[in-house]
């Protein structure tokens, strides 16, 4: 117990002193996950809009496919991206393996279906009269869809936050494609795994605290957006 308290106090010390290694890991995590979520938001909402507007029978196939992709195992995604980016893979010439860009790609693949799935579900559960009213007032098909997005904006924001929650705490995919290189591709989750493995718990606890704090903030945002959506 004494060891745990002592390690925790030292971890708090690392956080308050803004230790350089600690800070670089946290900032890289935020940069990778933030960039991935921004790209995944654009792709996810676009995908949701396309499926929402689709009239073809393919839609019946796409929705279960999208729902299945929401639970993609991160290690499988990591492995798939690794095979694509490895030297002998189809995108090997880009030399992206073991770079933050590879980690962003992997996290994008994980977050996009979550954002698209939740955004699409919000749009189809919105009052169908919203779309019809927009059309009655002269909206084009796209303008009517944009109106539905606007009316369900809090649910769609929830999907973005859920996507961020998924990628920031993810370890499998970034470990495979990033390689956990110190000062270059080491993010919070991979650093915690490595430090715990090495028996150096102080940095792991410090990073764990930040990760928990981020998760708490993400969930608080999710709660606020869901509540505002419910009130509206």
């Amino acid at each position, binding site marked *: 117990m004494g060891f745990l308290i002592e390690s925790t106090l030292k971890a708090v010390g690392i956080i308050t002193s803004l230790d350089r290694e600690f800070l670089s890991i946290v900032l890289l995590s935020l940069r990778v996950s933030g960039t991935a979520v921004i790209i995944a938001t654009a792709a996810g909402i676009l995908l949701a809009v396309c499926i929402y507007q689709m009239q073809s029978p393919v839609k019946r196939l796409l929705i279960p496919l999208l729902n299945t992709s929401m639970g993609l195992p991160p290690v499988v995604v990591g492995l798939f991206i690794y095979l694509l980016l490895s030297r002998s893979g189809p995108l090997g010439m880009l030399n992206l393996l073991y770079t933050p860009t590879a980690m962003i790609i992997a996290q994008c693949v994980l977050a996009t279906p979550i954002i698209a799935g939740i955004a699409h579900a919000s749009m189809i559960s919105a009052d169908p*009269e919203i779309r019809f009213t927009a059309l*009655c007032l002269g909206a084009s098909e796209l303008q009517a869809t944009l109106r539905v997005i606007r009316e369900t904006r809090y649910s769609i924001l929830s999907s973005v936050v859920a996507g961020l929650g998924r990628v920031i705490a993810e370890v499998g995919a970034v470990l495979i494609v990033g390689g956990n290189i110190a000062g270059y591709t080491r993010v919070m989750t991979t650093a915690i795994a490595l430090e715990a493995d090495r028996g150096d718990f102080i940095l792991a606890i410090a990073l764990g605290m930040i990760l928990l704090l981020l998760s708490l903030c993400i969930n608080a945002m999710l709660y606020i957006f869901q509540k505002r959506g419910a009130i509206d």
Partner: protein
Amino acid sequence: MIKEIIAKDILRSFDSRFSLRCSIGLQSGQTHALLGPNGSGKSTLLRVLSLLERPQQGELIYRDEQKNYLNPFSDLALRRRVTLVNTRPVVFRESVLKNVTYGLRIRGIGKKECMERATMALRLVRLEHLKDQPAPLLSSGEKQRLSLARAIAIDPDVLMLDEPTVNLDPENTEIIEEAIKALHERGDRLILFVTHNLFQARKLADQVFFIHNGRIIEQNSRERFFSAPETELARRFLRGEIY
């Protein structure tokens, strides 16, 4: 300005139990009432005529001073000259004013003109004092008036209204009826409204269409329809025997 709408043998069916199959002609400058019992196809006909639902068969022609629009469903610019006010008013989650300017903003109309037209429309339905209120907080009567104001601001050539005063109190009903009359007095608009309120039809309409089981049974001037209907079904409807 749209001069005429002609629907020839249009068919719109949903299942084996109900199908709308009718022909109808509407003229600009006239207010038309569409009467009929529940489930007779009034709302379906309104949605087809307002270019929101394609019929499975038949021809729908819009005609203005320049030309006949033989394929009106694929013409967004034409659809924007027609506005339907739905039975259940759905308001957007923003202010009353923004709700009214929505139809103008999507047409690319400038901010100043949007404000002028929205203010005029809100004044006509007596909602000007609530323009900054969030629209979802309005009462159902006010929402229905807002719904009409959105259409008035657009100033469409063709205005269609699906039971515009259903479930409203006399005060809200009167405000809406006055607004419809004011539009009619502009002289060149084509107005078609569905109602179950025979007094309202008598008060507002120039022409009356009576629909039953998806067929137009009778078309007559207001005076003739209410004083000497030509068909037995219309007489029974006016006596309150079918509803």
